[in-house]
């Protein structure tokens, strides 16, 4: 699981690649908790290279979303593949996140 964070002006782009399974989520959890502090900004979660997500990963997404709500920021989920979209569907996440498709 790799995470690449790039900051531009008022937005932060988080690029995930690999599988966000339980160990993966555990691995990136400290980074994500830190990122939650900056939730007053627009955080773009780029899932273009994310192939898998489990409930641990969804928990991270939800934690960020709650932080953004607290701090007045914004979370944008970008480019989710069909299989992750179906997970979002199953969990009702489609209604919780603003989802942007690639270009």
């Amino acid at each position: 699981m790799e995470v690449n964070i790039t900051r531009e002006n008022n937005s932060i782009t988080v690029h995930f690649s690999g599988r966000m399974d339980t160990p993966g989520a555990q691995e990136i959890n400290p980074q994500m908790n830190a990122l939650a502090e900056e939730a007053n900004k627009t955080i773009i979660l780029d899932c273009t290279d994310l192939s898998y997500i489990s409930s641990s990963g969804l928990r991270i997404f939800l934690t960020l979303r709650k932080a953004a709500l607290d701090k007045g920021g914004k979370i944008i989920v970008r480019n989710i593949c069909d299989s992750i979209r179906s997970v979002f569907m199953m969990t009702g996440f489609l209604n919780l996140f603003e989802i942007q498709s690639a270009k």
Partner: protein
Amino acid sequence: MKSDRKDKKILGVSVRAGLLVVIVAAISLEATSIIQYIYSQRAIKQEASLRAKSELKNAENKIMDVVDQAEAAVRNSVWVAQWCLEYPDSIRRIPHRVVSENPVVVGSTMALVPGYSEKYPLYAPYAARDMETGEIRMLSLATEKYDYPSMEWFTKPLELQDSYWSEPYFDENGGDMLMTTFSMPIKDKDGTVAAILTADISLDWFTELVDEMKVYPNAFNMVVSRSGQIMVCPVETLVMNTTIDQFAMESENFEGFDRINKAMLSGQSGEMPVRYKGQTNHVYFSPVERTGWSLSIVLPESELYSGVRRVSMIVKLLQLLGLTMLIVILRVLAKNQLKYHNLNEQKKRMANELHIASEIQMAMIPKTFPPFPERKDLDMAASIIPAKEVGGDLYDFFIRDEKLFFCIGDVSGKGIPASLVMAVTRSLFRAMSAHEDSPARITALMNDTMSESNESNMFVTFFCGVLDLAKGHLRYCNAGHNPPMILTDAIRMLTVAPNVPLGILKGMDFVEQETSFNYDDALLLYTDGLSEAENASHEQFGEARIEEALHGRKSSEAHLENIKQKVSLFVGEAPQSDDLTILFIHYLGNENKKNYHLTLHNDVEQIALLPEFVETVASLVKLDPEATMNLNLALEEAVSNVIMYAYPEGTDGIVDIDACVVENRVTLVITDSGKAFDPTAKAEVDITAGVEERPIGGLGIHLVRTIMDTVSYERKGEQNILTITKTY
């Protein structure tokens, strides 16, 4: 109301039938008695006729005897009388002699023809017997009062020049009695009639004689003289006062009397009916020779037939009594029939109710076969044949979480009580097995409930099994039921632990056992109605015959039909003594079964091993990437929980993952030995909730539930077992 009307209708039919019987009986009885009456009448009439004729003959003989004596008395004195003509003074000795020598003669005279003797121009010395003293007095009839030459007894023989019997007459100034006289002309030497010699016979004697002729108590006799003078008659005023001619004319009441009158007067004999005051009388009559009298016996028909009438009356009474008894008997029979009919109606109603009960009972158990047509791993057949309308046997089965729950039971006793317990047992089985996967637990729970309220001390032998269809693993518990037969390579009895039947004692523990099923293995469950089915000579069908019937590989349906047919042939005409229930489970799973196993330690990093494992499983079912990912997700969610929380931190724990693929069905079983934890007990998350309300946790089990078809948890011993399945 309805039944009342029906009763009346039935009673009406019976009454009509009874009435017909009574009428026929009455007619035949009446006909016989009429015929008997007619024949008896004829016989009696004949008998009466014979008796009357013989009596008439008898009387006639007696009369003739007297007549003869009287005639002889006169004739014997003729020559003396002739001699005396020459000595007129001695004439008076003649009548004296006639009377004294002949007891039947009450008086006698020898009357000279007037002018024959110069000495005695009129001379008729009369000897009369005093009826009281027997003395013979001599009188003379040649008096002014008694003008003898004008008397019939004198004139007629003189005229006829021959002997003559006079008409009866009252001899006033002579014999002074009712009499009849035999007169004989006495001729002198010149052949001239000189005197008339007579002998008188009292008619009092005659009446007595005739009275003896009484054939019947109420019969009476009549004697008429030649001229029709009534000589003897029950009405004394008529005697010597009336001729029968006058009587016939005066008595309009008599019908047919004139004919008899004529016949009698012309000296005929015979019998004729005469009607008097509506009554028929039979008159038998016969003439008396020489005197010209006619004797008759008058017999009232009522008298004649009084005997036979009395008999026929008695017969009629008896008939009436018989008919009354017949009516009473028929009435009793009709009532009995009604009772019987009502009993039958009641029986019919009860049979109908029982039939409905039977239908309700049969509706409780699965009756549609094949029960799971979409399943290729299971072939089942079952049959229940109650000995009575309703029975105490049961079987039941259903599939939950890829497990076949099934049971068979036999309630002690038969009939309605057993059927009620059967219904309770079946309901309890369904209730207890809804959430419980262990047959022993199901059985124990059922036993507790049933023992609690078992007032009637009925019990149920019960076999309960749970077959894991994916694995072919059978867990079972036998509560006093006869062991089922298992058909693997060989046929054998399933080993069963000796548990007590249900309903006997609360709180009993039940031993659970297990065995493995492979493809094409089968289980035959039955009640003792099969093994103990008896033929006419009380032989039992027995396990050996069951085993024999199970040889060869067949479908469940074919096996069942085969067994039923064999039992039916064996039992023959003997009545079925017990409910007969058969449940046949043919396991066809496992054939294409692929088992995969993965053992993980309680280290989160181990989750990385899952994708490869899932890939292998998914490839068998040819899953697309998305479905593969979902299966992976479900498995990860199920496993990660265990890895993270089941074992205390710092200790090593194992998580076993068994994957089983049968055709397009995937079963994943996650087993761990950590602390008891039922993930399915967690409340469902609300996926429609907004960000604020959304809890962070609970998504894992939600995903498992959403992705898989079934999710079930079981705590077995020290293990948590979570089974999730999905059919693609």
